[in-house]
C-alpha cells in the first residue's frame, strides 16, 4: 500500500504529499487505518530514528474499513503511542495535546481524508499555519460530506449520489472542499426535477 493517487480536480480539493521527517522538538503523528504504513515509512527515513522516536507522540485509530495496524505502531517504540477506538474519541486527546504544545512541534497526518481533515481543523484552530502541516493519504477514499441544505455531515460516503443521513435529500458529491468543516459538499441532485435521480454508483472505496 503506497500513497493514494487521485485524479486531477478543482483547486479546493485537498492535495496530499508524502510524509518526510523535519526537525522539531515534538513529532505529533495522527493516523488512521492504512495511514500506519505511512508512519512506519516516515520513521524509516529519519536520520536519527532513536532520537525522533524519543520525541514522537502517535495517536491512531482503525480506518473506516476496519483496518487496524495499531500493533505495528506500538512496536515502533515511540515515546507515546495511543490507540483510540474511533475518530470522535481520538480528537479530544489531540485537542488536549495541542493546548500545551509549543512552536517547534511537527505535525504528520496520515490515512483517510476524514481523519486528516478533522485533525487539520483542530490544529489550525490554534493559529498554526495549515500549509505547514504534512499530510499523506493512504487507504480508503470514502468521503466526509456536508449536506449544504440541512448542514448535516454524513461520514464515510461511498456512493454518488447518496441519501443525506440527516434530512434524506438525494445529494451529489462535489470536489468542493471546506477545510473549516473538514468536509466535501453535497448538493441536492433532483431539485429541479424531483424524483429524477441517476443510478447511484460506488465512487469512493
Amino acid at each position, binding site marked *: 500500500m503506497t500513497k493514494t493517487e487521485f485524479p486531477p480536480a478543482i*483547486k*479546493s480539493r485537498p492535495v496530499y504529499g508524502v510524509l518526510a521527517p523535519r526537525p522539531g522538538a515534538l513529532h505529533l503523528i495522527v493516523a488512521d487505518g492504512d495511514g500506519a504504513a505511512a508512519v512506519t515509512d516516515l520513521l524509516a527515513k529519519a536520520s536519527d530514528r532513536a532520537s525522533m522516536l524519543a520525541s514522537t507522540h502517535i495517536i491512531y485509530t482503525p480506518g473506516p474499513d476496519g483496518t487496524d495496524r495499531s500493533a505495528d505502531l506500538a512496536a515502533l517504540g515511540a515515546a507515546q503511542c495511543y490507540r483510540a477506538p474511533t475518530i470522535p474519541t481520538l480528537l479530544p486527546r489531540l485537542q488536549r495535546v495541542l493546548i500545551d504544545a509549543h512552536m517547534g512541534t511537527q505535525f504528520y497526518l496520515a490515512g483517510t481524508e476524514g481523519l486528516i481533515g478533522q485533525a487539520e481543523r483542530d490544529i489550525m484552530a490554534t493559529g498554526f499555519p495549515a*500549509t505547514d502541516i504534512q499530510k499523506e493519504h493512504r487507504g480508503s477514499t470514502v468521503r466526509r460530506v456536508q449536506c*449544504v441544505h440541512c*448542514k448535516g455531515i454524513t461520514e464515510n460516503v461511498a456512493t454518488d449520489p447518496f441519501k443525506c443521513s440527516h434530512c434524506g435529500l438525494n445529494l451529489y458529491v462535489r470536489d468542493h472542499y*471546506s477545510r*473549516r468543516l473538514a468536509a466535501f*459538499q453535497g448538493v441536492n441532485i433532483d431539485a429541479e426535477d424531483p424524483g429524477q435521480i441517476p443510478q447511484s454508483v460506488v465512487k469512493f472505496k
Partner: protein
Amino acid sequence: MSLDFKPGAFNGFFRDETFRDDFTYRNSPEGIRRFPFPFDRDDYMYSVNMEPHTSGRKGSVFEHTFDVDEHYVSEMIDRAKVLAEDPLRCQSLPHMTLAGWDLLELIMESKARDYPQWFSLTKDGNRWHWINRPLGIDQTFTFLDESTLPYGPFEYITRQTQGDFSLQDERDNDLWMDAGMITSQADWSLDFDIGMSFMEWHAPVPLAHEKGIFDRALKFLLKLQHGAPVRRFNWTMTVNPLLDTAPETYPKWGPTRTTLSQDNMGNKMHLRVELQALFRLPRSNAVAFSIRCYLGKFEELVTVPKWGRRLHRVVRDLHPDLAAYKGFLRNRDAMAQWLSAYDDGKPTSPGWWPED
C-alpha cells in the same frame, strides 16, 4: 418575524415590494434607464475587467461609492427575513472584527457624504452618532467597542447596506474569505466557503482558471491600495426577482427553472448583474468585496433597443459550460427565442450605456 428597525418611509422614492412569495419587485422607468447593463459588446467571455471605482456619470449606479436606489428599504427587509430564517448567512471569524469596523467606517462616511438627506454621521472622538432615516435608525455608539452595538460591526452595517459583502484577510500572499454577509448570492454558500483562499472559493468556476484569470486577479488585488478602490461586473440569470438564490434553499427555488414559457419569460426571467467593488481597508489591511446585485426583467431590459439586441446575441452565443455554471443551460434556447423578437440584426454601438 420582527424587524429591528422601523422603516420610516416608502414615500415617493423607496418602493414597497417583495423578493419572495408574490414577487412584486420591479424597476421604475428611471430605474431601468440606470440599470448597470454589463455587456459592452455582443459576446461575452471572462476577463479580469477591473477599473478604478471612481465617481461615475451623474445619476448612474457609479455616481456614489455605495449606490442607494429605490429598492433599498425593501432589500433590507428581505435581508432581515433571510437572516431570521438562517443566521449562518452572516458570519465573521474571530480575527475579522477589526476589518468589520473598517467597513463600518467606510460605509457610514461614504453614505453620510453622498446622501446627506438620508444618512448622517457625527463624531465626538470615538463617540459616534449615526442616523439612517430610511430605516428609522438612530444609534450612538463607541467606535471600536463592539459592546456598544446591537450586532458586531460587520453585521450591523451590512444589515443597512444593499449588496452582499465579504471580507478578505491577507496572509501568505493570498486573500482568505474570513467574513461574509451573503443573502443575495448567485448560488454559493458562505457557511461552506468561509475560511477559503482566493483560489479555493473560486474553484468551482469553469474555464477561468485555465485562462489564468484568477492568477491575474489575485495578483492585482494583493496590490490594491487604500484610497484607490476598483470595480468589476459579473452576471447570471435568475427566475423570479429572488435575491436569495442560496444553495441552502436550492430545493425550494430550483424547480422554478422548469416553469418558464414564451408567455411568462419576459416577466419571470431576470438578468442578475453584480457590481463588485473592492476596497483595501486601512486598520486591518483586509480587502472588502461589495457584491451589489441588480435585477432586471427581460421585459424591462428590452425597452432599451440596444440592450434587447445585445442580450439576445450574448445569450444565444454563450459557451455552454458558462451557461451550465450560471444555471440556465436548460432554458437557454427558450430565452434566446424570446429575445430574438427584439433583435432586428442591426449593429450595436460599443459600451453599455443605453443611449450611446
